[in-house]
């Protein structure tokens, strides 16, 4: 069975799968069937993952480009316009103090909630991505080194086990306490805390990645293509970068999503416990923490940052689920 070229590029009809199609000859189709294209096709079938990806793209665009269109300074005080409720409060409470100038309301110092949410989201997402990349790089380095070099395996894996046995949240809190002031002095209040949080989260969350990567590298080392590469005299560097790393990319990507979700939650938990960024510097966790004292009168100030954190983490987790399914060749094409 050969499919018409037009059908192959049709993204709205993903359900037309019959068993013959997967074994059919695909030469001459309008798209290339590389591995990543297959993964993407499988990923598209996962409704939750697609919704998650859409939301993540939306929230990233909103915090990146939102301030261009909504150019109120999130730190600007406006005491006259303080304690404005969100615009939707007017639906059930016609006497509420609402204003179209501040659709999400303002806080007790008249700072605009929407601008603060955008600024906070920038920081939260930046912390999440950077910490995740740091943990990923550390985990991959240690995992590849342990899996590829037999001499390093024992000591590196014992170290991983020891790190896994550390009480992470208490240690994170202690590290925040101890290194906060010197880093603030060295890099300024915001940058110092940013570096500290990113490093602290990265250093305490590389272990799962390292374990997964090591296991996969150990399995790959026994395969014929590695033997073939070795027999033509490939150096260790080339072996790792050309042959091993591309093949462990899929577990790394899955643990990247878990790491991103974990980093966002950890950052907001630290802020929530009062050991995160300085008080006038908004992040989602900080906004939530600052509003808890007055949540009886202004529940929306707690709810919106909380929704932002939860939905972002939820969508990242769904993307992880979808990626795991899409990268598993046993499930692919079902």
């Amino acid at each position, binding site marked *: 069975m050969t499919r018409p070229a037009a059908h192959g590029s049709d993204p709205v009809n993903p359900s037309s799968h019959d068993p013959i199609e997967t074994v059919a000859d695909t030469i001459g189709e309008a798209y290339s069937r590389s591995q990543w294209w297959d993964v993407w096709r499988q990923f598209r079938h996962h409704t939750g993952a697609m919704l998650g990806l859409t939301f993540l793209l939306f929230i990233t665009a909103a915090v990146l480009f939102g301030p261009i269109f909504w150019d109120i300074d999130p730190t600007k005080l406006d005491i006259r316009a303080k304690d404005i409720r969100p615009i939707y409060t007017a639906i059930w409470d016609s006497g509420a103090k609402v204003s179209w100038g501040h659709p999400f309301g303002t806080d007790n110092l008249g700072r605009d909630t929407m601008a603060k949410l955008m600024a906070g989201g920038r920081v939260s997402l930046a912390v999440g991505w950077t910490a995740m990349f740091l943990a990923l790089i550390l985990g991959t380095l240690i995992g590849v080194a342990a899996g590829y070099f037999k001499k390093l395996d024992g000591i590196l894996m014992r170290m991983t086990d020891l790190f896994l046995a550390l009480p992470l949240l208490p240690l994170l809190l*202690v590290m925040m*306490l101890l290194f906060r002031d010197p880093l603030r002095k060295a890099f300024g209040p915001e940058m110092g805390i940013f570096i500290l949080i990113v490093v602290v989260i990265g250093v305490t969350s590389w272990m799962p990645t390292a374990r997964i990567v090591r296991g996969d590298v150990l399995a790959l080392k026994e395969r014929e293509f590695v033997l073939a590469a070795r027999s033509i005299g490939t150096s260790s560097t080339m072996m790792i970068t050309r042959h091993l790393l591309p093949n462990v990319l899929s577990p790394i990507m899955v643990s990247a999503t878990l790491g991103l979700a974990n980093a966002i939650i950890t950052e907001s938990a630290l802020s929530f416990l009062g050991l995160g960024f300085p008080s006038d510097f908004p992040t989602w966790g900080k906004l939530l923490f600052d509003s808890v004292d007055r949540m009886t009168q202004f529940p929306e100030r707690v709810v919106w940052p909380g929704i932002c954190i939860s939905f972002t983490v939820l969508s990242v987790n769904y993307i992880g689920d979808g990626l795991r399914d899409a990268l598993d060749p046993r499930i692919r094409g079902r």
Partner: protein
Amino acid sequence: MLTFTIRRLILAIPTLLFISLVIFALLEFAPGDPMAQVPLTVPPEVKQAMREALGLGQPWPIRFVKWMYQFFIVEPMYWIDGILGTTWAEGQQRVISWQTRGPVMDLVAQRMPQTLWVVGMSYVIGVLIALPIGIISAYRQYSWFDQIGTFVSMVGFSVPTFFTGVLLIVIFSVNLGWFPSIYDTTHVVNDWDSFLFQVRQMIMPVSVLALYNAAQISRFMRASMLDNLNQDYVRTARAKGLSERAVVLVHVVRNSMIPVVTVIALGVPQVFGGAIITEQVFKVNGLGQLLITAIHANDLPMVQTLTFIFAVLIVLFNLVADVLYGLLDPRIRYD
């Protein structure tokens, strides 16, 4: 099996020693001075005397060994004295908190019951909810129950506990007024009414933690059930003519429980860590709250001891998980 357990126990000792060293070194080499809060008008020699009074006069290896001696030898001796009425620990120096100038372990003993009640109860409830959900979800994969179950567990897994806690407070104690938002730890249960009050104040913190735990465990249970349901022995059991009930509840569940039991054991110390946040939200004055106040007050002996207790819990439950795995799955023992 005994040698397996003993080998694991012996391996745990260097791990604990290393962790205590890491914690100690972290506190030791961190920049920051416990005398930073003392006014500048205090002369340096008085500051030095204060330092020595806090036990900071000696080099750090000596202090580390002293702390270990106090924690591992003196504190258990005090504990035995308290139970048996002996006087072994008479006059020995204990680990002293800088905040209260009292022994750290006394404070820990005071705070432990609150944490154990809230955290322990939530973990038990979480497990009890998670197992049936995981089993049914896997057995009826892709049914509406499975869809809802996996969605709810995904939500419970993703939404941070400080947000669910705050949300529950907004809904149930602010808007509906059903439950108190602050956990009253001085409350004494002595009759039916006070028991009801205790239940009411425990519902919200327990359900927040239980949702979080149940979400994780039910995902594991479902995955483990799915792995087992397609195995050959299940087909054999069905072919033998066993009832579906016996196949699923006896054969499949028992085999799927092997990894889940270890996950449950491994989750216990994490729950203590996660409870730090929940305790902060509901103002439960348990161990987590003690740690937070100690951190804010720069009370290093307290921070060190508490962090180490959390580490001991992790190592202990790792050990429990290992031994349980070996007990349940004979293949593991002979490695």
